[in-house]
């Protein structure tokens, strides 16, 4: 994926998170994660990425 591709994905994701609203964003993101995992087809790598995403969630200066 090129940086332009990543940016397109980022924009589409940002727009839809805003559009579903805070109350439904978790539901939406879990559905998306399950859909992506199913397409991706490699459970071990998905599980590694789940742990990767969990890192640094409490970092103070993430913004």
């Amino acid at each position: 994926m090129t940086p332009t591709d990543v940016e397109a994905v980022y924009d589409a994701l940002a727009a839809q998170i805003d559009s579903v609203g805070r109350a439904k964003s978790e539901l939406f993101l879990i559905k998306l994660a399950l859909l992506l995992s199913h397409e991706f087809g490699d459970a071990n790598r998905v599980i590694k990425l789940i742990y990767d995403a969990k890192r640094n969630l409490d970092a103070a200066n993430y913004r």
Partner: protein
Amino acid sequence: MRDAALNLALSHSFAGQLANPRQMTPYTYCDSPVVCADDPEFKSGPQVGAMLPEARIGDGYLTGKPGAGFSVLVFDKRLANDLDIAGVAVILIDAESEVAQQFGARQSSAYLVRPDLHIAARLFDATPATIQHALRFAAGEVLP
């Protein structure tokens, strides 16, 4: 998580199995001493000892209906009304529905569901008395 899986299952069937609250490939307890012999009159549907399958009921899901104790699935309003067993949830399913077909049930049929959502007994032609007996057997109180 389960809500997300159920919601996704509306459009993608692979997510349906995730919504099952139990393990993905449930064990079928067909030889347990508290599992009745299966009623051979059933030509289809989940056999005794199997996990209660997921199905859409109205705007909810079948596995979301049972209470904390045993439940009885019935397909006849009158039978549902005649059942009054303390602590047992009665779930009425339309005998003409797809779910009834999925259970191989006719109007007089009944499924007794254990608290862990495995099927304890099923009766092709049930009466309040035979349901009560199946319940007492499943609870270890009587012999078949």
